[in-house]
């Protein structure tokens, strides 16, 4: 009954229920859970064709880390640090380690408040290094530092032919490029070396500014680009007409000499179970947006200096907040459109959402810079990215998503697979012109619900 043992078996196989973060799909999977890098390599070497996909911490909203009826390789057992060089800031670790652990252990302020920080962090710290690489995630500083993949020095990949390969810009560069943003389809990422970043103060100076219309976002953004390294805006997506695109612009930068302790490893409060009905509906969204829009009061501007937790990870404060959407779950939509179409296309998207009256509470608008990610099919590209989530109302929601998708792809943009549960094969192929090149590096054993939905792996391929 108690929990210690000496067994060194590479993995135990069993079936388990896994879902997408958006709870659109939950399904039984045959699960393999390697406990070590060697164990993971042995597992990879035994995988039949089109059978398996790696899973990190399941924070992808869509189906990139799902594989119903087939195998999931749960990578959370690979959670060891390997080495950290405090003079160069190079960290080597296993791929199942969480960003929250890296922050807790390595991002501690020195006496002068400075310290080492992950160069790129998405809106949640509860994701694995492997998941961050496979989706090539981005953060609020994408305009200045690019995506996560830009800071990967090298990685080790286990392939189903039994090989364990080191991949970097110098060694196996093609496979390196395919694996960054490669959605787990090139094999199991075992370890990675990351280049951390020295910041003059771990605390942030943050400023929130209310703005009245979409044009103002672009003005504020242009103004902030140089001096503020973290930027993003919340948009009130229910506002239409004159007020279309109004919102709150959020910008932050490191406060030199001011330290901040790392955020907790787990949220202190959590939604214990899925309520039978969604707590997120037309009424609550309307109320939330109206209140949130006014949160800065009559001064319409607020600033403070302090921990980065609230700026980077506002949603991490409550565990399993995704359950609030009820049993039907929710769709997340994130797209990027090239800079030349940014303003008109964003306007068109917001108008479409506002007129469909399918509001979202989390609406993020953010500019990506010109730093090119090393990944072949990475999501980030120069332009404006819009992210929202919609309670799942069935057909009406899927139709809205299809309309948004059409607008984005017609403008030369693309949809983010990590957040997707509905894009068409055509849109995927159009949005990711290097797809054919990428496919040559696919590991034949890998398949996911997403890969099958996109026709990357044919349904009848599966044995």
């Amino acid at each position, binding site marked *: *009954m*108690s*929990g*210690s*043992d*000496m*067994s*060194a*078996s590479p993995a*135990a196989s*069993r079936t388990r229920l896994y879902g997408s973060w958006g709870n659109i799909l939950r399904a039984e999977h045959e699960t393999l*859970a390697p*406990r*070590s*890098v*060697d164990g993971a390599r042995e597992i990879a070497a035994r995988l039949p064709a089109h059978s398996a996909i790696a899973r990190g911490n399941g924070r992808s909203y869509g189906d990139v880390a799902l594989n119903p009826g087939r195998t999931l390789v749960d990578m959370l057992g690979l959670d*060891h*640090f*390997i*080495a*950290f060089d405090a003079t160069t800031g190079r*960290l080597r*670790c296993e791929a199942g380690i969480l960003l929250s652990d890296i922050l807790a*252990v*390595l991002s501690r302020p020195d006496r002068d408040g400075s310290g080492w920080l992950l160069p790129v962090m998405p809106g949640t710290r509860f994701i694995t290094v492997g998941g961050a690489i496979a989706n090539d995630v981005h953060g609020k500083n994408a305009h200045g530092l690019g995506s996560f993949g830009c800071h990967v020095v090298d990685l080790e990949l286990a392939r189903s032919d039994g090989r364990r390969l080191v991949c970097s810009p110098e060694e196996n560069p093609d496979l390196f490029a395919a694996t960054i943003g490669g959605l787990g389809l090139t094999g199991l990422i075992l370890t990675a070396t990351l280049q951390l970043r020295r910041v003059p103060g771990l605390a942030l100076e943050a400023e929130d500014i209310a703005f009245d219309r979409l044009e103002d976002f672009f003005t504020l953004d242009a103004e902030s680009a140089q001096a503020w390294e973290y930027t993003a805006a919340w948009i009130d997506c229910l506002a239409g007409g004159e007020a279309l695109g109004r919102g709150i612009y959020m910008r932050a930068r490191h406060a030199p000499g001011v330290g901040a302790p790392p955020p907790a490893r787990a949220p202190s409060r959590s939604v214990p179970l899925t309520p039978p009905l969604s707590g997120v509906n037309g009424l609550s969204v309307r109320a939330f947006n109206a209140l949130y829009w006014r949160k800065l009061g009559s001064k319409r501007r607020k600033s403070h200096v302090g921990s980065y937790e609230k700026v980077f990870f506002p949603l991490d404060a409550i565990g399993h907040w995704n359950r609030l959407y009820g049993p039907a779950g929710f769709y997340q939509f994130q797209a990027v459109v090239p800079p030349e179409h940014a303003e008109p296309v964003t306007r068109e998207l917001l108008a479409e959402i506002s007129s469909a009256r399918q509001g979202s509470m989390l609406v993020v608008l953010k500019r990506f810079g010109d730093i090119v990610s090393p990944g072949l099919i990475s999501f980030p590209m120069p332009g404006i990215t819009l992210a929202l989530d919609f309670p799942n109302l069935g057909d009406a929601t899927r139709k809205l998503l299809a309309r948004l998708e059409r607008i984005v792809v017609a403008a030369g943009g693309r949809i983010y697979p990590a957040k997707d549960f509905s894009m068409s094969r055509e849109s995927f192929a159009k949005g990711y012109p290097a797809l054919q090149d990428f496919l040559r590096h696919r590991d034949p054993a890998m398949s996911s619900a997403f890969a099958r939905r996109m026709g990357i792996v044919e349904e009848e391929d599966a044995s």
Partner: protein
Amino acid sequence: MSTSPRRIAIFGATSDIAVAFARAHAAGGTRFALSARDGAALDRLAQDLKVRGAGEVTVRTVDFADLSQLPAIAEAMWGAFGGLDVALIAYGSLPDQAKACLDPALAEEALRLNFTSPALLVNTLAGYFEAARAGTIAVITSVAGDRGRQSNYVYGGAKGGLQTFLDGVRHRLHASGVTVLDIRPGFVATKMTQHLPQTGPLWAQPDKVASDISAAIAKRRAVLYTPWFWWVIMTIVCALPRAVFHRSKL
């Protein structure tokens, strides 16, 4: 931080509870002497603890089922840093009860690893700690040791015997100021229990158990039920009249 132990030895260091315990104490230069059967896993853990802030980590591979290795391993771990603040014994195995009923060799193996070996090891360590007149010997037993049940009395019997043995060692070491902690976890989601569903309100994570152990060591407690509600459950289970208990399928 002043109460945090500075020299820790862990026997069965690669078990999930032990790993969680070691990680929780790594920051601030704690020195670790680690032993387990799997050398590669030990090396991996040693590196991990160093990045997490451990001062020094020594490792030793050992098969605890081989009783002849115990005196040497105890000496080596005690001597690694010239004495210890905490020795945590965390190894064990969960035998298949149905098979162990039919196969004496399997039952003997389980009794050896879950009773004879840790008991002999504690006995040897007790001598070192007694002479130093300080420190804590912490041993993971199990709530399964509190009352024999048809479904796992081989494991439960070994753990129950170990509990009684620890009781005696505690009595012996009382005068020297050494603490003996008997840790009784319930269901913990570890690799040992990976074949079970591991979901439901009774299942605990290794991190939770590890932090309970740390608190119990700091408070110099004698017996720890972790999570706490197992104390309530086991009090009831032990109080059930035999006539009632025997009708259950537990």
